[in-house]
């Protein structure tokens, strides 16, 4: 067996220098990642959350609210073929690793080839699907050749935004590592980001600013004012201490922490006026995530193979109650499988989409219509008031995740029970397994696909992912839907760029099928409600302060941009 690479604690060799609280940023988070793991390739232990994003940098960031690329290690990244089959990357000549070595095309090639060859790395599948070859033209230029048109590869894979995209890793750090997946990295790992890991134990993780950060010299950014970042471990089970986390934020023990329940965030603001959110002190206090949630189901098994049943479930859900009861009147409930970011908002605001919406009424709550559809589908109510056919009720157990769904799912279950569906909650450890296996029932899960245009979301229902029952479905492809007509529409969109009119036309067509066939039941947009305490730090990313244009979550891949933009209060 190989030697264990992780540690049980990282203690600073010399005691940490005392810093005034005003130079320190305290972030509350649940640290569950293995101590000492800083290597992005140490999968599945590595996560960019919990502070590692402060160490690693991508070729480019994408500022979602700025709706633009932010060049970083790469100064440019352009498709060099019209059909999106070639891409050229030019690196920033000033980019340096923390050990002083320059970031070169060798590192980029190493990073890309690693993903391509190593099937344990997170983007292996994407690379394997699209990338033909990666070559270094010179020290600062990399050419990527694609097997098939890859118009979204640059955005989806090479840019960091939200929680996706890849960081560039130093080739020389892996010299002599037998198993790159088992190498923890630790403090020794050279990295390009400005913060160095200096201490890590079960309670906290501490990063110090490295003042010779290359990006400052390169003029990308002024020297960050945050000299030290402390990630304070809130413990594993958030539900158990939601109260205390909120109160500790109010008490200014922390400058920011993980996102808050909608029921809590308003009170946090009320109790400490210094605290603000993405939307200031106004509802909905958060920004839109890329992860709108639907009730998914396996469209291959009865009774969910019947579009009438799927539609009946949608008709049983009262989206107004969701907005009013759970989210304090914020308009969270949705009818779309994608988040309404600027590009997508434009799409749904188009006249074609408006007409379609008016025609199909996808968000309608109508128990009578629901009942009618169920009767048509051959169901009858049994003694307990539940729909039944052939002695079987409709198994509407909602599989979900306790930490994030414990507010919405119980309410959904009640809607379903009220309409005669046999509802229950499953926050078990097998929830995801059930989704992947396509077990009977409903799956509360996000889409995590589209950001700029609807393609990625619509592609989730493509017939090529329609795994047969018995084989696990891919992530976010739980529908197992197969419809040649739908596939044709999506295929037509694939090689087109988003601003192509043809693309728009097909997208509307696909949406028509999505709604009429009710491929899944869209429930809510996903909001991140993060409290920003301005007692010590200001200039948090908000709806009005789009300076860096990021989504404002310090734990996201763009967290480095959030932290480095902070100003002393």
């Amino acid at each position, binding site marked *: *067996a190989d030697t*264990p690479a*992780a540690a*049980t*604690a990282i203690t600073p060799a010399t005691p*940490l220098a005392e810093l005034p609280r005003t130079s320190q940023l305290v972030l509350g988070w649940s640290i*569950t*990642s*293995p*101590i000492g*793991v800083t290597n992005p390739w*140490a999968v*599945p*232990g590595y*996560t*960019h*959350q919990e502070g590692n994003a402060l160490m690693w940098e991508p070729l480019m960031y994408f500022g979602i609210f700025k709706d633009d690329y932010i060049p970083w290690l790469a100064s440019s990244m352009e498709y060099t073929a019209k059909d999106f089959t070639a891409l050229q990357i030019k690196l920033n000549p000033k980019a340096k690793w923390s050990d002083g070595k320059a970031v070169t095309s060798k590192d980029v090639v190493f990073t890309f080839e690693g993903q391509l060859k190593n*099937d*344990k*790395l*997170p*983007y*292996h*599948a*994407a690379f394997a699907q699209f990338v033909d070859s990666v070559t270094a033209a010179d020290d600062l230029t990399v050419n990527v050749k694609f097997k098939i048109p890859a118009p979204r590869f640059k955005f*989806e*894979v090479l840019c960091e935004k939200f*929680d*996706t995209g890849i960081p560039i890793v130093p080739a020389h750090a892996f010299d002599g590592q037998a198993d790159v997946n088992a*190498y923890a990295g630790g403090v020794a790992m050279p990295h390009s980001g400005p913060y160095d890991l200096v201490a890590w*134990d*079960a*309670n*906290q993780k*501490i990063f110090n600013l490295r003042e010779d950060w290359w990006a400052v010299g390169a003029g990308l950014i002024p020297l960050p004012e945050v000299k030290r970042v*402390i990630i*304070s*471990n*809130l*413990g*594993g*089970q958030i539900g*158990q*201490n939601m*109260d*205390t*986390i909120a*109160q*500790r934020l109010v008490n200014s023990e922390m400058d920011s922490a993980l996102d808050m329940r909608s029921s809590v965030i308003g009170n946090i603001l009320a109790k400490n006026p210094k605290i603000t959110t993405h939307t200031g002190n106004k509802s909905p206090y958060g920004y839109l995530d890329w992860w709108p949630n639907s009730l998914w189901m396996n469209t291959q098994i009865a009774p969910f193979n019947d579009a009438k049943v799927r539609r009946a479930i949608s008709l049983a859900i009262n989206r107004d109650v969701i907005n009013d009861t759970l989210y304090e009147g914020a308009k969270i409930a949705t009818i779309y499988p994608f988040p309404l970011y600027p590009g997508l908002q434009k799409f749904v605001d188009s006249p074609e989409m408006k007409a379609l919406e008016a025609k199909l009424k996808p968000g309608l709550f109508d128990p009578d219509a629901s009942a009618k559809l169920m009767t048509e589908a051959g169901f009858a109510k049994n003694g307990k008031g539940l729909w039944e056919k052939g002695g079987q009720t409709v198994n509407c157990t909602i599989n979900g995740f306790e930490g994030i769904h414990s507010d919405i799912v119980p309410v959904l279950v009640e809607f379903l029970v009220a309409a005669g569906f046999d509802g229950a909650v499953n926050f078990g*450890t*097998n929830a995801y*397994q059930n*989704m*992947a296996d396509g077990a009977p029932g409903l799956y509360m899960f996000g889409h*995590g*696909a589209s950001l700029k245009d609807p393609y990625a979301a619509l592609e989730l229902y493509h017939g090529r992912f329609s795994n047969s029952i018995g084989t696990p479905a*891919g992530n*976010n492809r739980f529908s197992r839907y197969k419809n040649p007509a739908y596939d044709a529409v999506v295929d037509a969109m694939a090689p087109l760029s988003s601003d192509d009119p043809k693309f728009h036309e097909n997208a509307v067509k696909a949406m028509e099928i999505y709604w009429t066939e009710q491929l899944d039941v869209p429930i809510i947009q996903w909001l991140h409600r993060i409290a920003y305490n301005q007692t010590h730090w200001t200039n948090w990313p908000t709806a009005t302060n789009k300076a860096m244009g990021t989504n404002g979550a310090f734990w*996201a*891949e763009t967290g480095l941009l959030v932290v480095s933009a902070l100003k002393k209060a």
Partner: protein
Amino acid sequence: MILRLIFRRVLFLFVVIWCASSIVFIIPRLSKTNAIRERFAELSRTGGFSPDDLEKIIASYSKQFGLDAPLWQQYQDYLGNILHMDFGYSLNRYPMTVTQVIVTAIPSTLGLLLVTTVLSFLIGNFLGALSAWPKAPNWVRAMATPFVLLTGVPPIIMGVLLLFFIGFRLQLLPLGGAHTIGIVPDGSLSSYLDLLLHLILPSLALILGSVGGWVLSMRGMGITIQGEDYVNFAEHKGLTGKVIFRDYYLRNTLLPQATALALALGTVVTSAIVIEGLFGLPGIGQALNSAIRSNDFPVIYGIVLFITAAVATLMVAMEFVYPLLDPRIRNQ
């Protein structure tokens, strides 16, 4: 003779560990859940993964962790590894080993649990013995009933109430965490005081939640002993109350209580799960809780085995301590 006894006890220890390990091995596998898949679902939910064919990565890792082998094979490997004290890697926190996960979590838990368990054992037994003792002042004896009521307050409820009244309402004590944020514990007095301050509420919850049980069992035993002829004779001998209490009551009741103490250490870990969660303390309870919730089998096995082995070892050790406490056992 003594070797034989030791041999039998060690054998017992092994059987206990084997049983515990088999139970924890089999049960989570009864559902067909693939731990790796759940882990990647978690990761893909929090991002960092291309949504594209995750299944391939999952298959690859399942192979690495031996999860694709037939159950029987997995079981054999698992037992074999345990024999080598090798619990393997955590699925969730790879490349951290299970041992590292435990070693990381244990100091915090041990500090909290050992202290609270021993304290509540001492307080509970003392009060229990007193409340059973006819010579004790009335108010001491009357305290038994409130303590019985306390046994009805599980640590979690006690924790919730303390947190609400002392933490929220009165804002007297820290709400969570093991120390003030930003302090790197350096072994200085002030860092210990800081730690202590943070541990008051969780300790109180644990102590108050378990002290009643000790009071009760000790009281029952004390009353039983009080009817013994030798206690009566001690009074006839004109011994002082103090001597009777110490040498005739406590000495005779402590023996069964000592075993219970060993057992209690096992159950208290369960309280730790909720208390550590409630107060945001990163200990073994938290580690176990998140392992259970993420199907991190190796960590679950590791922790349950660790605790079982610790309790069983303590119990066996107790058997060797017994003869010191009770000469009657020495002859057997």
